[in-house]
């Protein structure tokens, strides 16, 4: 996961950057950064299965362990929780670390259904967890299999909850409770008996869940998925970065298309909104586009009824009528209303049209309403 690059900074406290060596590569990072920031900046990747930059380091999955040299002694530390120090030397992929990660992944494999579902289940196959399993060549069955967690038979239309794929990283409960502060889900039980649970009765529609979808977007295994994207192979989709069509926050979204058709939305983690969305942006930003009720051709009122027309007919009629009205009663007998929903470029053209082609300043938009 990429670390958010703040677009602006507090005027207070700009201290000297730190210089580190990661696998022999020199890198400079801001003061108060973690070791993980240094290795990401140097272009090295370690699995971070419990990490979401928005809630900060938890240090529970132990996958991001690295070796650091401190006072001539080598220590193994979690790179997400450990603060970077000046002149620190960091090793990310020693043989011992690679073996260690492989064993950890095999332990996680022993508690999930993923071995059975890999790789035919696409959501799982696309996950951070599965990528790590492949990278470190971890084998399902290397450690005796444990009893599975139970999927939640939750009828809500948005979030699929296959907890048999859960590795108990708690990213979903962290983002729900610490970032969204919705308090919809929690951890019930301990150890292998731990299970994600929602109030009340484990049905999200009855819980304080706002369906912001952040649990889906942070889940590293595919245990939580977007029901609207169910059955769609991520390998066959394309993503287009754009902006959510709702309120003025302007969250970044990625529209997901398959064969030129919209099939869903994902958050854009590179945008200033840092991957956050609400229920509208996450689950309501594309179906209206595909509605059968969309206007598909121009209409002209004939004999009191709107009827299909060609573009030439429609636009000529618009031009003719506006010319006629302006000629008879002057340009101020017309008004133009722009839109808070269309791109700025179109609004610019409409105001220019009113002022230049018609000759009136009667141009307004709905910022009042």
């Amino acid at each position: 996961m990429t670390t958010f690059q703040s677009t602006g900074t507090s005027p207070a406290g700009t201290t000297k950057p730190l210089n580190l060596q990661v696998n022999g590569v020199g890198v400079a990072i801001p003061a108060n950064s973690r070791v993980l920031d240094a290795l990401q900046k140097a272009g090295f990747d370690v699995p971070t299965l419990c990490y979401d930059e928005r809630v900060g380091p938890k240090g529970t999955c132990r996958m991001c362990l690295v070796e650091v040299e401190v006072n001539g002694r080598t220590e193994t530390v979690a790179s997400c929780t450990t603060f970077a120090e000046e002149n620190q030397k960091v090793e990310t992929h020693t043989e011992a670390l690679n073996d260690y990660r492989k064993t950890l992944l095999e332990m996680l494999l022993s508690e999930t259904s993923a071995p059975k579902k890999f790789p035919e289940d696409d959501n799982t196959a696309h996950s951070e967890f599965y990528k790590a399993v492949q990278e470190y060549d971890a084998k399902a069955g290397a450690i005796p299999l444990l009893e599975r967690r139970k999927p939640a038979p939750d009828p809500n239309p948005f979030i699929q909850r296959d907890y048999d794929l859960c590795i108990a990283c708690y990213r979903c409960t962290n983002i729900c409770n610490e970032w969204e502060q919705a308090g919809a889900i929690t951890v019930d039980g301990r150890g292998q008996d731990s299970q994600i649970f929602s109030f009340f009765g484990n049905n999200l529609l009855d819980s304080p869940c706002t369906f912001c979808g952040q649990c889906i977007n942070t889940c590293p295994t595919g245990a939580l998925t977007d029901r609207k994207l169910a059955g769609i192979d991520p390998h066959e989709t394309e993503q287009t970065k754009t902006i959510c069509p709702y309120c003025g926050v302007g969250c970044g979204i990625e529209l997901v298309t398959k064969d030129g058709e919209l099939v869903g939305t994902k958050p854009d983690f590179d945008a200033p909104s840092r991957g956050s969305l609400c229920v509208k942006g996450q689950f309501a930003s594309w179906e209206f586009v595909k509605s059968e009720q969309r206007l598909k051709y121009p209409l002209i009122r004939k004999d009191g009824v709107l009827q299909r027309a060609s573009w030439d007919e429609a636009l000529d009629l618009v031009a003719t009528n506006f010319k006629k009205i302006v000629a008879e009663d002057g340009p101020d007998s017309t008004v133009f209303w722009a839109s808070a929903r269309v791109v700025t470029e179109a609004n610019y053209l409409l105001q220019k049209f009113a002022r230049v082609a018609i000759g009136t300043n009667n141009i307004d938009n709905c910022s009042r309403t």
Partner: protein
Amino acid sequence: MTNSIEELADSNLILVTGSNTTEAHPVISLRMKRAVSKGAKLIVVDPRKIELTKWADRYVQIKVGTDIPFYNAVANVIINEKLYDERYVSTRTEGFEAFATHVQNYPPEYSAEICGIDVEDIYYVAREYAKASPGAAICYTLGITEHSCGSHNVQSLGNLGMLSGNFGAYAGGVNPLRGQNNVQGAGDSGAIPTDLPGYQKLEKPPIREKFEAAWGAPLPKRRGITKITAMDQMIRGNVRGVFVMGENTVVSDPHANHAEHALKSAEFVVVQDIFLTDTARLADVVLPAASFAESDGTFANSERRVQRVRPAVKPPGEARQDVDILLDLFNRMGYPQQLESPAEVWDEMRKLAPILAGITYDRLDKGQGIQWPCPTEDHPGTQYLHRDDMDSGMPGFFAPVDHVPPAEEPDDEYPVVLTTGRRRSTYHTGTQTGRASGFDLLVPHEMCEINPSDAEAWEIEDGDTLQISSRRGSVTVSAKLTERSPSGTVFMSFAFPELTRTNDVTSDAYDFITETPEFKACAVKIEKAAEQNPEWRTAQAKIRLAGEIVMPTKLKEQQQTCD
């Protein structure tokens, strides 16, 4: 916004007023919650007990339309207790003496009476806000502006921002949260009766001359008329031709019957939209446009950040992008434009608008958007305004504003206040959220939120079908009992116009300066409808309004036993 969304997480204190942030701007509310987690104080001033009050250190429940007496009294305390930033006031503002005298008319005890609150709340807000400044942010939205005194409401907040030196302070400022994806961009582009692109006043001759030279045409000198005035002029026959792009005026504007009557009175109406909306049904010509997902261009968000919009799919049938349609129309009017793409349109605009001059598509494609003002291509954009000086180049003027009650106050015939707004899972007139699968499980239909004590007095039960009437119209709606509404005030959104066209009822008053309609207050009467809709009762039985937890009956019983 004077400041930026991300900064709010670093504020010392956030005063949220007239903004139901967790529902209307959920992702901005995350930064507010973050600030609270980091130790900031949160104060919510709002007639409705909205979800955000759960995070608040203090919730002040003022009566609808009493913002000015409240904030004048807050200013009174800040001045009389000498809690204001004297240096800032003397170097960056004007009119302080007159303002200080003016707010003596609003002693806390007097205002507390008007607002219906405890006087201690006023002292608390004044002292905490001043103590946390600079670096205390005020956030507001339409709960402040959609009043007949809306622009004065805004000024009463601006006064506080100046007193405490928060204009130009990191994580401070006075921040309107914009309600629609590109309402900022529509203003930036010059789609305003008084301004050319980039908020340049068209009544200034040098400005007009610059645009005349660039556009190669003489420009009209007189400012134009607003939408509200235009509708009156249609009815009088003075406005004959109307061009509406992407707006469902008939449903979204107040006193909907009036808007409909106006458009029917106009001789020739063109509507360019993606659906055959209620407004498009009144048109003589309907032009099918591309949606956001099919459009190339930019939106500007609430924090003045210009971001790229990119097409993911092709428009359906013969529908075309708005830019393309308008360029075609220019040709047919005999004013061909040497522009072919949104990128070229943007370039023409930015070169004429100094605040946008440094923003190019190239830069936008490489980064995370750019916040104006951005005068040159090597300028990083502006995170917060008024940093070293007021951006207008003039000092900040204190505005001695007075309390103006809503244009329509409750009386014997219409004894209840109706206020309107949004809910989290529905949006505006419902043309988008109404077409998303599953959303009927979150909010199935329009609901009138009524305080349970009022409901008991009026003998209304949850799910009853009500007839709500004002002097302008009447609608049927389902009753929803909730503590979110204060006694004597009810709340509705306007996202289900097919069965409940809320704006048939709302007020036709508007702000005397900006002509923003008074959506937030009108007087209504509430009766049980003759014909009940049992489906509504069933559909909403399990609906949770934001911030409410519906405990299962079994748990509730257990809790009562414990009590």
